């Protein structure tokens, strides 16, 4: 509480994360901790088949277990919700499997009991009779496979560019995005050099340390959901739609999240607990185990073919990209990833002739969705590996090749949208300086060889999306900030408080940030795609300005000096005592022009561009193929940084996550079954895997449309890590790996093959 009006600038300083103490002392509340009176625990029985018609689900043995309150299947859900399908792009995902299962691990039945152990024991007794169907797992095969995952396509209707797919049969293509600029075909005919390479990425997992969890509490008039969600507003709208209720009868509350990374967006367990709670008229909690995360949402595996025409001087004149995204059994946000990442598939280069085809595909694997980069890390893996392969073939330095082709400020990008406030050149030059690229490099000796590599990527923000914020000033001058941005570990509470405080002229520490509660906090599209700092930041700034303007107007009305009168004095003069509120409101939705379906062209595809670059120094053990990253340098354009310390940790956190995706993380499938669904068998980087030297830098920059010049940064650190490492490996030992993950064995096999002594399988 304060009436201090001049605490100094709030944006650009690094107050500690406001939740840090509560989290470190174990006092921060999470949904996993929540217990409600009379609450039942739900445990799922899951499909054992990747693709099959369900003949019968046998729940008798489960029902016979003492303490089991109810067992629900898709048919029970259909009694309550006649069309129990959800999804942000397609209404394709049933709450519990109906008629058929489309991946091994798909939820089949829910057992409810007061004791979770009883529910778990009973869930293991549920069996189904199946009629097996042919299955498809590979994204390229899915284009032509006779195995069809969904009999008919059901676009949700929210995205105009999916409407042409409504009712389409006998296809696994959930979206095709095409972009044509210039005449690529003709440019290839006249090209000096043509390079074509194909790259692969693997399925990996978000793996937040807090697994998915939701609780539904059916009240007299309202259904309340307590859920670990990145998108409370979307959940409210989607649950209301499923139930045929008005939005205000569904209330969604979200405390802190133990990580999200794109997994906890849209509807995950919320429809299931909502339906179950309404059927049994008791609160229902479903908390997944770590293992069950492997059956909920993954990151798209992709196959990427990229072809470039390059002239004698090393300028890229044409580029053709074909990308196949393995979306798994349900589309989730995959079609959006296919389209939005398609915008930037040719990379941050100034290329006259461009042709892009990007396909979202259904397969019989667990669904894939957004994961810290929205498809961009997959694309950068391809185009930045490709860049070094071209540069090497033409004996051009990789940095010089990039400088020669870089997309400069004011130039039109492949979609036709002009580059504005995208510090690609500054980021590349600062990376080169930090890497001391023009200085000699120690190459190692014996069985330890050293190399270095760089990569740079960029991203168009998901658009158009809406954020609304409310700032409420109390009579003593203290403030509440109401917004539905979810602080899932990225520090948004702290940053939003700084933005509001900057406007109001108070200290950020004196603002209380109210966590998402759809009865209280206003609409926000979701916390995803690094959109919050820019979109919600703008809404918060406007709400704070509105509150400030109202305070000033009130002061003027009372004959007080608006700028200098302490806030409590204004309220005392108005209400005669410490009483009242001043409430400011702000909303933000950027401009957007949809791309033309045939050409993919638009003059306004994004409100802002994100830029991320990484340089690495590595050591390769030539006897084992083991790669050790000894130095990791991450550069980004985050506009003006709201909280430099948080930006720094966002960059290193993202880069370390991508380091795991690059070197060893991989969900392994055998005939559609996950073979390593545990933290013992799916490894993520630990402290001992961190490079000894990690440097992060947000370059000096300003985003014209951002709050105080700021923009998002949560994903930028992931963009270029993978190709930088692959490029450094070639620099060190002369072999090229084109599929992720780059395991020690993959490098060793490449080394053996390059010596003409390939290792047997």
């Amino acid at each position, binding site marked *: 509480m304060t009436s201090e009006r001049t605490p100094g600038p709030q944006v650009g300083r690094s107050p500690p994360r406001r939740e840090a103490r509560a989290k470190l002392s174990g006092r921060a509340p999470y949904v996993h901790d929540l217990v409600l009176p009379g609450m039942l625990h739900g445990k799922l029985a899951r499909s054992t088949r990747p693709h099959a018609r369900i003949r019968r689900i046998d729940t008798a043995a489960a029902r016979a277990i003492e303490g089991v309150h109810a067992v629900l299947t898709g048919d029970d859900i259909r009694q309550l919700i006649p069309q129990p399908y959800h999804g942000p792009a397609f209404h394709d995902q049933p709450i519990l499997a109906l008629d058929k299962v489309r991946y091994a691990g798909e939820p089949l039945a829910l057992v409810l009991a007061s004791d979770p152990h009883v529910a778990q024991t009973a869930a293991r007794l549920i069996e189904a009779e199946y009629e097996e169907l042919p299955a498809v797992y590979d994204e390229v095969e899915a284009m032509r496979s006779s195995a069809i995952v969904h009999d008919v396509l059901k676009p949700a209707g929210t995205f105009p560019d999916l409407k042409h797919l409504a009712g389409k049969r006998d296809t696994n293509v959930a979206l095709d995005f095409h972009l044509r600029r210039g005449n690529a075909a003709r440019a290839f005919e006249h090209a000096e050099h043509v390079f074509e390479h194909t790259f692969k990425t693997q399925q990996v997992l978000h793996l937040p340390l807090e697994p998915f969890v939701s609780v539904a509490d059916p009240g007299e008039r309202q259904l309340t959901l307590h859920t670990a969600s990145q998108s409370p507003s979307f959940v409210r709208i989607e649950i209301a739609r499923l139930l045929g209720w008005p939005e205000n009868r569904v209330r969604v509350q979200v405390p802190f999240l133990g990580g999200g990374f794109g997994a906890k967006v849209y509807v995950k367990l919320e429809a299931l607990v909502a339906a179950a709670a309404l059927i049994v008229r008791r609160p229902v909690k479903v908390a997944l185990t770590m293992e069950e995360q492997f059956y909920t949402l993954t990151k798209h595996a992709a196959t990427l073919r990229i072809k470039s025409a390059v002239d004698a001087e090393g300028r890229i004149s044409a580029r053709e990209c074909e990308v196949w995204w393995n979306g798994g059994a349900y589309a989730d946000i995959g079609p959006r990833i296919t389209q939005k990442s398609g915008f930037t598939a040719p990379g941050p280069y100034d290329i006259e002739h461009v042709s892009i085809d990007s396909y979202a595909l259904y397969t019989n694997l667990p669904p894939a969705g957004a994961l810290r980069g929205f498809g961009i890390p997959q694309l950068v893996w391809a185009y930045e590996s490709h860049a070094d392969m071209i540069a090497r073939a033409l004996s051009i330095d990789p940095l010089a090749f990039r400088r020669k082709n870089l997309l400069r400020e004011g130039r039109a990008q492949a979609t036709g949208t002009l580059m504005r406030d995208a510090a690609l050149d500054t980021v590349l030059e600062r990376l080169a300086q930090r890497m001391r690229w023009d200085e000699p490099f120690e190459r190692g000796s014996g069985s330890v060889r050293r190399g270095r590599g760089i990569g740079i990527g960029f991203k168009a923000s998901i658009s158009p999306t809406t954020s609304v914020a409310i700032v409420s000033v109390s009579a003593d001058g203290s403030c509440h900030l109401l917004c539905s941005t979810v602080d899932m570990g990225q520090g948004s509470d702290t940053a939003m408080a700084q933005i509001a405080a900057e406007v109001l002229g108070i200290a950020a520490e004196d603002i209380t940030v109210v966590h998402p509660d759809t009865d209280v906090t206003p609409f926000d599209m979701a916390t995803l795609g690094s959109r919050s700092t820019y979109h919600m930041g703008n809404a918060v700034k406007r709400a704070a300005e509105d509150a400030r303007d109202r305070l000033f107007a009130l002061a003027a009305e009372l004959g007080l000096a608006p700028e200098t009168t302490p806030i409590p004095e204004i309220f005392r003069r108005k209400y005669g005592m410490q009483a009242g509120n001043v409430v400011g409101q702000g909303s933000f939705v950027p401009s957007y022009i949809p791309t033309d379906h045939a050409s993919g062209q638009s003059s306004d595809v994004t409100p802002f561009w994100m830029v991320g670059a990484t340089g690495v120094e590595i050591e390769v053990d030539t006897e*084992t193929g083991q790669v050790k990253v000894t130095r990791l340098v991450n550069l980004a354009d985050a506009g003006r940084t709201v909280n430099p310390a948080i930006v720094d940790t966002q960059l290193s956190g993202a880069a370390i996550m991508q380091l795991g995706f690059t070197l060893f993380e991989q969900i392994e499938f055998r005939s559609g079954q996950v073979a390593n669904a545990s933290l*013992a068998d799916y*490894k993520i980087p*630990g402290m*001992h*895997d961190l490079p000894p030297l990690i440097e992060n830098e947000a370059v000096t920059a300003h985003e014209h449309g951002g709050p105080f010049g700021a923009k998002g940064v949560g994903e930028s650190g992931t963009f270029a890590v993978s190709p930088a490492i692959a490029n450094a490996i070639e620099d060190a030992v002369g072999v090229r790996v084109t599929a992720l993950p780059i395991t020690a*064995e993959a490098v060793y096999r490449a080394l053996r093959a390059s010596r003409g002594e390939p290792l047997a399988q």
Partner: protein
Amino acid sequence: MTPFELIEPRTLDEALRLLDPADPGVRPAGGCTALMLMMKAGMLVPTRLVSLRRIEPRYRDIVASDDAITIGANASLASIEHSARVRDELPALARTLRTLANVRVRNVATLGGNLAHADPHMDLPPLLAALDASVQVQGRGSSRYASIEQLISGYYETTLAGDELIVAVRIPKRAARGCAYRKVTTRSADDWPALGIAVALEREGERVRAARVVLGAAVDRPTRLLAAEAALQGTRLDETSARRAADAAADEARPSEDARGSAAYKRELIRVHVRRTLLEAWCDEPVGAVRQ
């Protein structure tokens, strides 16, 4: 996890009486670090756990005599790691423990539990086998000794009867013995090893008098690589002889394929890391090594 009965007897005799070889639901429990994971995963559903943590404190002692170091089965891995005796006389054991799991696990996991678990990915069984350790096994009114190879009979399998408990591990002292263990991980640093290689070399002047080379993790139980051992016998250990022994090891080993690597790749890793471990063991200089 399904609820279960937990009993904490105060004596070893009482613990032995509480075990029931006829009932697979009754299990002894040490530090519970592996047991709890198996129970959470539903792989093991015991009805009764007989915890050994409150039995007589002497089963945690680390005792040195003229010819051996004897470690009580209830000793925590951390207490072994920090024991001055172990550090001085078996530095390779102390070094190995520093990268075994993590400090939270080492603080509660016990030596006896580690061996009885018989997970092939464990670091200690191959190392203790290389050190020629013997395991003291107590039954109701009976006591026997077993080598590590006799104790661990397969993948998560031991020769322990349902009413037998490991009470101590005896590691014989040897003159001029150098020892080293290498945990080889191929994914994250804290992954289960793709292979574990333990080497103990007894010197006679500049030559190898006796060698023990034991492979773990890549095979279903700690396995001595006898051809490699034979190749080392009587040699002067240098890059060439180490390479020859490592080639013999790679030829005789039968590694299995898993997520950590193909069999062919693991064979190459064995070739590289047996050589490196041999050279490391040759330079290992225990403090206060006894002269026989």
